[in-house]
Structures are given as C-alpha cells and as structure tokens.
C-alpha cells in the first residue's frame, strides 16, 4: 500500500483545459473521493494517476517515487471502471485471474489467489459462470475481484457504482467501505454523487472546472466549505446564500444585514467593503417571530421526520429544515433566525470563504 501525492497536475486536450494545477495527497490506507459535477476533471485526474492519460504538467508520486510518465502497467495500481470492463470471452475465474496471468504467475498460485479474492467478495459460487449472465452487482464484484487479486499499491475507481440501481448501490457502498477497512488499501474513488462520497470517504476532494476547490474530511466539507461552489454543491438542499454589502474587521462578531446585526463566528481576517455572501445551511435556520429576516412561506416538501420549507424573502428564496410536526400555511408570514456559530461568509467575487472562528473548531481533516 502506498501514499499518492499529486502536485500541480495539469491536463489540456487541445484548447480545453481539463485539469488546472490539481494538488492533493492521499495518505497510505486512506479513502479519498474525487467529487464534482460531470466535466469537472475528476475522471481525467484519476486517469492520470492510473497512467491512462499523460499530464501536460505536474508530477504524480507513488510512495515518493515519481511515476508521472510511467506506463500504466508499471505503476502497480488497480483500476475499477464504471462499465466493469469484464472480458466477455472469459468466465469469472479467468477474469479475476487475468492480472495475475499478465504478471506471469503460475496456475496453482493464481487459482489460490482467485479463490481467496472470490471468498472476500462472496462470489465463490460464481467462479465458473460466464460474466455475461451476471447481475450488475455481481459483475461489479467480479471487477473488484480483478482489482484486489493482485494486491496492488492502490485502488483507483471511476464511478464503479454508477451503472447500478439505487438499491444495489446502497448495498455496494457499505460493501466497498467494509472492503476498504479490511484491506486498508489506499483508494481514490471518483463520483459525482455526494451521498456516496459522504458515506465512504475519509477525505473528499471537491473539483469544479478542473480546479480542486477543497480537500477535507466529509464533515469539514459540509460544515466549513472553502468556497461558494463547495457550499452549493454539497448538501441537499444546498446552503442558502444571502448576498450583502459590507466590510469585516479582524475579530468582528457580527455583520450588518439590512437593518439588523447578525452574529457570526469571529472573523479571523479583515475584508474591505465589498460584496459578500452569508451562507446558512437549511438546518441552521430557525423559525422565530423575532427573526431578523422575514418572509412568506412559498411551499413545503415533506421528507418524513423533517420537512423543507421554502420562504421567499428580501434575499431570495431561503430553504429551512424544520421538524415535520410543525405545520406551515402557504403565504403565511414567518420570521427567520440563524444559528450564529455555524454561519459561513464568502467573498462574492472570488467565491472564497473568509476565515472565521468556524475554521478553528474543526479537528477533522
């Protein structure tokens, strides 16, 4: 197993700049998710780590060794594809044993390791079946078998659950995480699904337009987003944004929002007067008659124990999470209040989060 260090990685396809100076480190045994919308460069980044694409600039180190320009087969990694990429002309046993055959390992040793991998993935009973008859989840297990059978330095997975139906996907999320805990393998996992990333990852790297916006633990990504994009992309519904104009002194504990002061985590840097954005998670919005923001209830979405209430305000539509027990009437005027210690402030022009006391409490990541 190994540490993966990606430094200032760049990739252009003709005029298209797919990955812009991406840097992150995956520690030995860590599970890192590359998360982002489609076209953000996450798969390209993964393919460069695998050696399926050569970077335009930057370096990739596996356990300290520079492998940037090495052939894929010389890197000792395993790759799990979204489309499973099982060879249709081979049965399950031969598919799993294929990487070992490529390495020139003898039939006896090969069979021992194939059986071991099949046992870990609980597909021993399928070994002599043809891959074309298998269900989606079983195919993905065979693809995983082909990855783990070689005991590589790390696993790279490109949306491996993307082709599965919801039910199978949830089961596989737990299986994959359990497999990772058991093997302790360094893993880089690409997905556009934040739930997958949140459920599995030790750390998440959020990418957008080829840029790594934030690398942190799932909790930090959620509670302390580093940019407007991350705050908007993570969470369902996403963070509410209230634009305002103002400046910040270091140590300031409130901002001026309209006519009222709103308490915020103490600022740790100064901001000149400029366009800023206050970010509030829906679950940190409270309904109170003395609320600092007033608005009209536009509609509610029932989610079981909670409901999402959309309120039209002076700052646009805000979404609030509230217990389902409370009932709202459409058109009803309500007052809203925010939990001060959880608020984020962003610079609107750069999208960057302004450092506040919020960023000091975290021990994660």
């Amino acid at each position: 197993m190994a540490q993966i260090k990606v430094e200032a990685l760049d990739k252009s396809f003709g005029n298209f700049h797919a990955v812009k100076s991406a840097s992150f480190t995956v520690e030995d045994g860590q599970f890192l998710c590359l998360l982002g919308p489609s076209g953000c460069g996450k798969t390209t980044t993964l393919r460069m780590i695998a050696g399926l694409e050569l970077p335009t600039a930057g370096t990739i180190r596996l356990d300290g060794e520079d492998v940037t320009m090495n052939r894929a087969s010389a890197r000792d990694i395993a790759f799990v594809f979204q489309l499973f990429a099982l060879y249709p002309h081979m049965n399950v046993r031969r598919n799993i044993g294929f990487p070992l055959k490529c390495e020139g390992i003898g039939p006896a040793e090969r069979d021992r390791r194939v059986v071991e991998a099949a046992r870990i993935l609980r597909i021993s009973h399928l070994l002599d079946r043809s891959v074309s008859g298998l269900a989606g989840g079983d195919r993905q297990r065979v693809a995983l078998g082909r990855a783990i059978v070689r005991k590589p330095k790390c696993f790279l997975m490109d949306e491996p659950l993307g082709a599965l139906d919801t039910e199978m996907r949830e089961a596989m999320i737990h299986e994959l995480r359990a497999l990772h805990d058991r093997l302790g393998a360094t893993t880089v996992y690409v997905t556009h699904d934040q739930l997958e990333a949140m459920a599995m990852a030790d750390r998440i790297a959020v990418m957008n337009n080829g840029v790594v916006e934030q690398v942190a633990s799932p909790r930090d990504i959620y509670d302390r987003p580093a940019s407007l994009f991350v705050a908007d992309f993570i969470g369902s519904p996403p963070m509410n944004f209230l634009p305002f104009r103002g400046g910040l002194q270091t140590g300031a504990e409130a901002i001026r929002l309209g006519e009222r002061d709103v308490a915020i985590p103490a600022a740790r840097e100064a901001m000149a007067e400029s366009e800023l954005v206050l970010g509030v998670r829906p679950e940190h919005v409270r309904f109170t008659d003395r609320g600092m923001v007033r608005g009209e209830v536009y509609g509610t979405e029932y989610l079981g124990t909670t409901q999402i209430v959309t309120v039209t305000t002076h700052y646009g539509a805000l979404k609030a999470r509230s217990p389902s027990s409370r009932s709202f009437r459409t058109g009803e005027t309500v007052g809203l209040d925010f939990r001060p210690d959880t608020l984020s402030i962003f610079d609107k022009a750069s999208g960057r989060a302004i450092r506040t006391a919020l960023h000091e409490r975290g021990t994660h990541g």
Partner: protein
Amino acid sequence: MTSATTAHSVVEPSATTRRVAGSLVVLYAIITMIPLVWIMLTAFKSPDDAISYPPKVMFKPSLEGFCNLFTTRSRQTPEFIRSLGPPQGLCDSIARDRNMVVAGPSNYVPRFVNSLIIAFGSTLLAVALGTLSAYGFSRFRVPLKDDLLFFILSTRMMPPIAVAIPIYLMYRTIGLSDTRLGMILLYTSVNVSLAVWLLKGFIDEIPREYEEAAMIDGYTRFQAFVKVVLPQATTGIAATAIFCLIFAWNEYAFAVLLTSGNAQTAPPFIPIIIGEGGQDWPAVAAGTTLFLVPIVVFTVLLRKYLLRGITFGAVRK
C-alpha cells in the same frame, strides 16, 4: 371487457403474419436459388441434354462436363483410337466415345490455384492492414482524421475499370504485370478502404475500458490489442473478410486486363472454355460450380463468428 378480448402483444407478430412472412422468405429464396441450381444441374448434363429444348429437368447424369473442364482433347480417326490400348480412366473413355483422346490437363487447375492464392492473400492483407488502421483511427488522436478517412473512402468512389489502363501501364513498367503479387497488391488496395471503414465501426463499439483494464493489469498496448480487442472484434473481422474475399474472388475486369499466361485467375478463364470446340456448356457450368465452392466453405466456416456477436453484453451501457 369480455373474454373474447384476449391480450395481444404489439411487438410479437401474430401467427398469420409469421406464416405470410415465412412464405415470402421461402419464395424469395427459391427465386434466387434457381439459377444456381440450374448451373449445378447443367454441370452434370451431357452436351446434348444441356442444349435440348424444352430444357430437361430429369436427365441421365454425366461427368463429361467435368472431364472437358479438366482436360484438353484432340480429335482422332476411329482407326487410330482403336489402335490404342484400353482407355486411361473415365475421362479418356468418355472422350473416345466422341472420337477424341485426352491430350493433357487443361489450365483450369492452375487458374483455380491462382484465384485461391490471390483472393485469400489479398483478403488476409486487407483485413490485417484494415484492422490495424481501423484501431488507430478509432483510438488515437490522428491529425486530420476525418480527412484521411474520407480520402480512404474516396478510393472506392471511382469504378475500378477507370484506373485499369494506368495501372496496366504502371504494372508493366515495374514488372508486376501478370504476377500473383501484383494482383494481390491490387485487390488489397481496393479492399483495404472497405476493411478500414467496416472495422472502424466494429472497433468503435468495443469500449476502451477493456484495453485500459488490460494495460493496467500489465499488458502493453499491442498485447492489449491482440489479446483483448481482437477476440472481441472477431465478428467484424469475419464479416469484413467475407466481403473482401467475395470481391477478390469474383473480380473480372482487372483480371482480364492484367493477367494472361502466368497469373490468370478463374473468372477470365471460365468464359474461354466456351470457345474450345463448340459451346461446351456443361464444362462452363462445371467450372462455375466448382468456382462457388471456396466462398461457400469460407462463409460456412466463419458463420459461428458471425453469430457470436449476439452473446456479447458483459459491459453495461
């Protein structure tokens, strides 16, 4: 809703539709088969039966056509024939009934062998080159890819006969005229465009993940191509090979112009038989019947690869 209203599928054809469609297919098959069957029957007729009117469907089979195809004969006086010993085999005795003796083998066998070498040689080359270039066009960023592909296709837009005379002159200059190698190269160049286009379609359908997985598992790109891409492209390769072989096997115009004594193929030879001593239709029919055999055998041998396409599906799209 009464019980008379039974559910019927809009996808599955009804029994009547099936029967009508089946009969049409059988009818069409019969119409296309009649000329072939007639040629085969004629091959086993005696020359008299072959030209009798009304045409005979029932007749006494004879191997005279095949004998005349494989031998050359000379006419002799009955006295001379009687002075010879007993006939040397079946063909000799058939010839003697017509006051002739077998003078030697005809050119059919060498022409047939030329056809085999040239057709299979050019098919092999065209499919090999076509597979490699189709893979390149399918997988790599080739500069001017679309223009190159169009250029390759454009070589087929002209009727082959339009370039026959320039090729004849060029071949004469460089000494490829009337050689098997010359014909192999010529048919390869005609077929390779077809092969590239057909195979590119098939290879585009094979997901890249297969090769990429193999490359990560330790193969070089060439090994991945040979061991992973080729087995999955067999359907396309088989279909392409059949098309190329049929073209090269049947080609007539170039063969007439560019070959004579040495590298002549069967298609220009078969009509020559007509001229030798009257219109010997059974011999022509025998030559044609045998000429059909290699294509039929080749297609039957490759049939299982053509059908294998159906079982693919280990990749979910």
